[in-house]
């Protein structure tokens, strides 16, 4: 009984922590996702998607829904509105009830940590927006480049279905989540979690949306011996993502150290680092994806460019047969871009009939 109470208290604390980071304040997220069979997870996401649609009028539904084979699928970016035009349902146009339905949907689609990451990225963008808002009384977005928590968009590419392929697309400045599903199959690639600032505080609490990615990567590079580092560390500077937005279908020659040259403990660290991206999606979808990545681990490479002291600006890339992850500071430790791809299954290419 005491153990049960402790578990309940831990869960309540976790929900409270997530609620505090969600920028659509005043709304508690739905219960966090437990591991489900993948087909059940799809059904849950579809149910949440349909619940959201019921809150929308015809105009709202028209903004939300796109044909599966149209151009919307690849219309995503890290850039803010004003430079890149997103289509879909704009969060700033929604009522409290509609935002709550979006919250429920994201909770269904993402893992607990993925939901935290997404909300912290949005929170960072809102902090950046406020810092750029100008003097009191100035109209928001006065510099014509618009971002902040209202400027995120949700789109359904294809009708939500438990069997037919469709895609949930959610993004804005520094965020693109592209989750394609068909029955029990799923792909959350390509996706782009990024952040600026990389560190901010809310009510005295320090928030680092991509802090785990940074810290786990530095821990891994520092766990390598001199010989391994000489293989992993590139001799040149990498100042941006190589396979960022617009580079669908491209595969670059892998570089760095092969995971087969790592010890079991180092391999576990690499897997744990990869999970920061592959585990954004709900656990039922992340588990088979992680199994696939682990199976191909011997053919997976880890490459590093930059100093190896945590707190320095460094780029890294993890690349395997079904995986590309890049982490690229943008001339600043406070502005990070990352990309997560599966060159064999972006947009669900493996399971979406041509």
């Amino acid at each position, binding site marked *: 009984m005491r153990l049960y109470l402790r578990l309940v208290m831990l869960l309540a604390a976790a929900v409270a922590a997530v609620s505090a980071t969600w920028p659509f304040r005043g709304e508690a997220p739905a219960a966090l996702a437990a591991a489900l069979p993948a087909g059940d997870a799809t059904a849950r996401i579809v149910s949440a998607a349909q619940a959201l649609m019921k809150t929308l009028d015809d105009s709202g539904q028209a903004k939300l829904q796109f044909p599966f084979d149209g151009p919307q699928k690849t219309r995503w970016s890290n850039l803010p509105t004003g*430079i890149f035009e997103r289509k879909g349902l704009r969060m700033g146009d929604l009522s409290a009830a509609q935002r709550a339905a979006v919250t429920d949907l994201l909770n269904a689609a993402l893992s607990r940590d993925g939901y935290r990451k997404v909300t912290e990225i949005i929170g960072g963008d809102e902090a950046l927006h406020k810092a750029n808002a100008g003097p009191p009384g100035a109209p928001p977005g006065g*510099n*014509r480049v618009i971002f902040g928590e209202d400027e995120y968009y949700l789109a359904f590419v294809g009708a939500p279905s438990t069997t037919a392929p469709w895609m949930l697309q959610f993004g804005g400045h520094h965020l693109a989540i592209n989750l394609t599903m068909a029955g029990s199959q799923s792909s959350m690639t390509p996706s782009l979690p990024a952040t600026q600032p990389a560190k901010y505080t809310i009510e005295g609490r320090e928030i680092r949306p991509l802090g785990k990615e940074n810290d786990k990567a530095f821990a891994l590079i520092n766990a390598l011996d001199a010989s391994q580092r000489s293989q992993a560390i590139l001799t*040149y500077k990498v*100042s941006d993502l190589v396979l960022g937005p*617009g580079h669908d279908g491209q595969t670059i*020659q892998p570089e760095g150290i092969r995971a087969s040259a790592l010890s079991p403990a180092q391999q576990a660290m690499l897997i744990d680092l990869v999970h920061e991206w592959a585990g954004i999606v709900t656990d039922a979808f992340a588990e088979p994806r992680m199994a696939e990545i682990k199976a191909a681990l011997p053919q997976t490479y880890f490459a590093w460019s930059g100093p190896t002291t945590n707190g320095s600006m460094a780029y890294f890339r993890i690349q395997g047969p079904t995986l590309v992850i890049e982490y690229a500071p*943008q001339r600043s430790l406070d502005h990070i871009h990352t990309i997560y791809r599966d060159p064999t299954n972006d947009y669900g290419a493996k399971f979406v009939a041509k």
Partner: protein
Amino acid sequence: MAWVVVLVAVAGPVSAHRLDEYLQAARIGIDPDRVQIELDLTPGVSVAPRILTEIDRDHDGAISREEARSYEARVTGDLHLDVDGRSLALEPVERQCHLVGQVLKGEGILALQWEAKVPALTPGTHRLRYRNGHHADIGVYLANALVPASTRVAVTAQRRDVDQRELVIEYELGDPAQANVGWWLAIASAVALLAILGTVPRDPQGEQSPVILGTVPRDP
């Protein structure tokens, strides 16, 4: 070559997007008989007016086809490509080159593409050298080999200078005759497999009997 260009006068920089650098990201594809280069040019917000002035030479606020060709020719002249020390001529690929987004906000991209014919090479190790000297004063470079589409080409090493202005790609070129032998072997193997499958005895229902690994007791 069609260029779609819109110049938008914008005041105020986008916070923390690329500022005083000119990002030049190249991806290089190697085939046995040709090399393809894709180059994305992204001028940062504070250098974008300078770059656009160089392109828009009559300063009319629009980029004509001729101005676009002229700038492309200038970039072409700033690139070097050779294989085993023999220079290769870069030919612009007929495709839509465009400015994506808004260059003056530091996020527009000029996407250019070239192709170079490679003279007949003997099977074995070869070395392709790419060098980009365009706007070396403000340039920031990326250069990567793409995984070759041809099974005859295998990239074995990439070497760069610290700034990635220069990339040397070592690759193995396979023998076309051996490649053909490989195809014939694959076809022969497939035919043999089909022949073997066609002779496997089947049960009376016309389906192969499943292999039973174990049984699980069920409730009545």
